[in-house]
């Protein structure tokens, strides 16, 4: 068991990191411990937990902004927002199903890992909604960037740089997000029985229409159960009359792909959480799980290329741009097959693959995050050193030396 440090405020967080730096003792940063399996294993004998850094520090519904200390449970944020008919529009994924964990996800980790969901295609990722941070860097200094207003180009945007850095640049102590109103209604249209490329073409037709699709996913045949039919989903949100209008316009637009059906609200809600949380691939538990971000139209070809080399189950979100892939956790867990397929589809510009779930031993041996071109790797290591020269915070979480 690792020793756990639980600072009660920002000043104590800074003090503990200064002490760790002086002792050259790396620490692993933890929020609710629901996603500590994300990334490369960390050689640290102590954990710094944000569990006591809690509480919403500012919520101005009329200004669409919320700030909270990093350890605040995501559920508390979401409940608070819901009470005012607002939400985090980027729809953060919950990793508990995939990782089989049972802690409470924290808002700080959502920011640190840039955790988004299906609505990312329309309204942006966590990184697009995070507008301010306070954090402690590897020097043990308190650093702030951004703020509580929607637009801000004052100096270098460290908010974006640190969002998705998986704690390698600093421990967030407080994060500020832009929030948006909850829509009055949601409606999900489904197409049945399409193969992957037809399905992605249908999603693309929806996404290039003026109808403001807020979710576009495809679950291939046999994914949820061996006999399950392929299901292609398009989500609309807004005022009831507007949603009705767009739903019928969209159904007409998609006629060439088959008959669309409006799903029952309960079923639709369940399906979107399943898509968001990669639920269809959670079992079997020993499979390795990959997450690929690709140019949407290339998704099906990349999956087909992988499947020619090894057995894989896959489904698509983001109109085909996000591919979830489950393969046997053997050898390199399919790393070469997956990344070769990306390269074949057009090199570094065609996308990237992250090994989301695999045993620790495997995550230590395989590139969990997409390998970078040498100059970008050098810059990334340089940036790490500029925040955390002694590699105290989540050392090596993303890459060797980062």
């Amino acid at each position, binding site marked *: 068991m690792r020793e756990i440090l639980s600072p009660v405020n920002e000043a104590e967080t800074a003090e503990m990191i200064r002490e760790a730096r002086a002792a050259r003792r790396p620490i692993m940063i933890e929020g609710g411990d629901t996603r500590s399996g994300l990334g490369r294993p960390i050689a640290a004998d102590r954990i710094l937990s944000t569990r006591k850094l809690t509480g919403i520090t500012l919520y101005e519904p009329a200004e669409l902004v919320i700030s909270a200390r990093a350890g605040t449970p995501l559920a508390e944020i979401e409940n608070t927002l819901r009470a005012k008919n607002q939400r985090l529009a980027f729809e953060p994924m919950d990793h508990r199903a995939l990782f089989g964990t049972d802690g409470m996800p924290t808002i700080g980790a959502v920011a640190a890992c840039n955790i988004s969901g299906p609505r990312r295609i329309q309204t942006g990722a966590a990184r*697009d909604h995070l507008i301010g941070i306070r954090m402690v860097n590897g020097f043990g200094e308190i650093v702030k960037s951004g703020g509580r207003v*929607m637009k801000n180009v004052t100096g270098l945007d460290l908010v974006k740089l640190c*969002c998705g850095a998986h704690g390698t640049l600093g421990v967030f102590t407080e994060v500020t997000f832009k929030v948006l109103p909850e829509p009055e209604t949601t409606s999900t249209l489904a197409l049945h029985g399409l193969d992957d490329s037809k399905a992605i073409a249908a999603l693309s037709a929806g996404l290039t229409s003026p109808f403001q699709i807020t979710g576009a996913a495809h679950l291939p045949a046999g994914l949820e159960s061996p006999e399950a039919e392929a299901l292609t989903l398009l989500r609309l949100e807004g005022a009831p009359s507007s949603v009705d209008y767009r739903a019928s316009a969209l159904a007409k637009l998609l006629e060439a792909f088959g008959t669309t059906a409006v799903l029952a609200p309960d079923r639709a809600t369940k399906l979107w959480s399943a898509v968001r949380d990669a639920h269809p691939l959670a079992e079997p538990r020993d499979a390795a799980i990959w997450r690929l971000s690709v140019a949407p139209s290339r998704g099906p070809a990349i999956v087909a290329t992988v499947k020619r080399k090894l057995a894989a189950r896959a489904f698509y979100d983001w109109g085909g741009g*996000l591919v979830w892939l489950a393969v046997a956790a053997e050898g390199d867990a399919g790393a070469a097959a997956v990344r070769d397929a990306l390269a074949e589809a057009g090199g570094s510009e065609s996308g990237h693959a992250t090994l989301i779930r695999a045993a620790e031993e495997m995550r230590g041996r395989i590139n969990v995050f*997409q390998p970078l071109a040498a100059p970008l790797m050098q810059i990334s290591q340089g940036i790490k050193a500029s925040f955390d020269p002694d590699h105290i915070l989540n050392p090596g979480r993303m890459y060797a030396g980062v």
Partner: protein
Amino acid sequence: MSGIVFPTPDETILARRADIIAGLAKLVPPECLVTSEDERRAFETDGLMSYRRLPLAVVLPRSTEEVAAVMRYLHQEGVKVVARGAGTSLAGGAIPLEDSVIIGVGKMRRILDVDYANRAIKVETGCTNLSITDMVAPDGFFYAPDPSSQLACTIAGNIGMNSGGAHCLKYGVTTNNVLGVKMVLVDGTIVDIGGAHLDAAGLDLLGLIVGSEGQLGIVTEATLRILRSAESARPVLFGFPTSEEAGACVAAIIGAGIVPVAIEFMDKPAIEICEAFAHAGYPLDAGALLIIEVEGSAAEIDAELVRIIEIAKSHGVTTVKESKSAMETAAIWKGRKSAFGATGRIADYICMDGVIPTGRLPYVLHRLQEIVTSYGLRVANVFHAGDGNLHPLILYNCNDPEEQKKAEAAGEDILKLCVEVGGCLTGEHGVGIEKRELMNVQFNAEDLAQQMRARAVFDEGWLLNRGKVFPLAAAEAA
């Protein structure tokens, strides 16, 4: 006038000017190299026209490879570089140093790939902002960030400044709409980040590069997100007796969960100036005007407008005027987008760019007026109200050095006020030289040192756009 200090030029570089130009001439053809004093004058300033410096030379490469060769050479010679797009920066971000070479992307304006299926377009960064939308508009698409300078400004400059515009309330600013870049590092290395997929691999370098004001490298190509246009859009004019009432109405609309595509604000002086220029039908009897644009099908627009008008009524609205035709819509936006130019016809002005929490709009508008009046000057306000992004235009006479000093002092007070109420110094124009020293108001030494360390990773010798963004003393010490 010289309120803002420039770094002292390096005499040894100035003395080597002829050699440096000879070296550049080996890398690019004569039509890409500007050396005569007359022609260099065209590059001595930008949108912050009261400051100017002649660069050593200007290079206008035709390709990424040429940019790389020039960067490699200048790096080796230890010569400073200032990246330039169209030179419309209002913060002095593109103003050269006397011991620097300008690298401009003005000749790189090819559209490389239009990919509707993936909602992406790949372009060279010398393309103007408007040319992107013009390219895809016939097929019903658009590029969302729409700075008022969009006819002239380049994607390079938009990326440099993380530019915004009227329609960013709904669709986000540049950083939310850039998917990838090709960038030349200070030593000539070419890197590719991102592409037609979402969220580039590794650390979010793209997020750091957008808005970095030419401090990290020269961006030569970009992959941008394009969106399908709504079925239709309708701007509506709302006239109010006072600025305070209009400000309160904005806060109430956002607070009611309505996020229109655009909420633009003008006070009385701005209404008069813009109406005289554009004949857009702005209500001249109003103390303040909101232009609110909603989009969708005609029925969707009607439904949303009912709600907005309801709120406006409870805030004392006196005029509500919907655009009835494409021509009226064009006139309404022409008036708004030419606000700065139209103001320039009646007086010299400095354009501020602070951001405040929308709830503080009425208070700030009131204080702002007091500040400017206390300097004996006048102000016209046009701004992106929906996200609290103020653009007070402080009017003065640029031939009167005393008055310019006062205008700059008033501007500084206004930006400090923005920070004081929880906002920031700049929402879309960038820091440049203009707000460099005010960075100390928004950030403390640790904050700034962290930014400068990250910056130095890209450019250890501080050759790129030196003397901008960071307080001079802090940067010299780094």
